[in-house]
């Protein structure tokens, strides 16, 4: 939308610098701190949805087919 950031183009200097540092120290390996941080954020984002539980529409859908589900299945 309007406020969306122009994120498509990383500044080439920064990424180049990043790659150089990486290859000169630990090739293709992020530090533990960075990996941990990314992992935390990823799980926080994911778990936020998980913690919403089962929306009614899906609970109803699954329960409908349970038990006397024959009426829906045949």
């Amino acid at each position, binding site marked *: 939308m309007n406020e969306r950031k122009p994120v498509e183009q990383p500044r080439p200097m920064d990424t180049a610098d990043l790659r150089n540092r990486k290859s000169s120290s630990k090739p293709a*390996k992020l*530090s533990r701190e960075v990996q941990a941080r*990314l992992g935390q954020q990823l799980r*926080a984002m994911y778990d936020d*949805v*998980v913690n919403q539980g*089962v929306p009614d529409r899906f609970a109803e*859908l699954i329960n409908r087919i*349970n038990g006397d589900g024959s009426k829906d299945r045949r």
Partner: protein
Amino acid sequence: MDESVRKAVLGAVPSLRAFAISLCGNVDRADDLVQETLLRALANIESFQPGTNMAAWLFTILRNHFRSEYRKRRREVEDSEGRYAETLKSQPEQYGQVEFREFREALAQLPADQREALILVGASGFSYEEAAHICGCAVGTIKSRVNRARTRLAELLSVFGADDFGPDEQTRAVLARGGG
């Protein structure tokens, strides 16, 4: 349908939904995807092997369905932002709004293969072997996709998020350095 099977399906829904949202970046579309997945799964429930991982089975169906039906449509990051934010009822306290948003934007920029591998292993909690099974590829392929996804995410976040990448100064500095 057996009661234990029904419970297993029900129990897998929250994670299935989180996976769907991270795949298509749009909550409404993700919920449609989950619905279609459940209908397919329930119609073929006899092909589920009791004792095996129900979540992995459902994820495989969802992932394949997404690939065949939804892939052509472009991911709508702009549209997803507002809708996604609406569903996030409990914004985790420890992460700033900006940081959270930037993380999702960065994730959205990853190639689909890398994003799904990272989510399956890093968030859904599947092993590399299970993720490989779900994606129908070799374990080594999953490992390399996850590594590339992490590296790319770190690059993206250090590039456009350095100024307000969360409250943790030390981590920010690490990201800006690129680690190592």
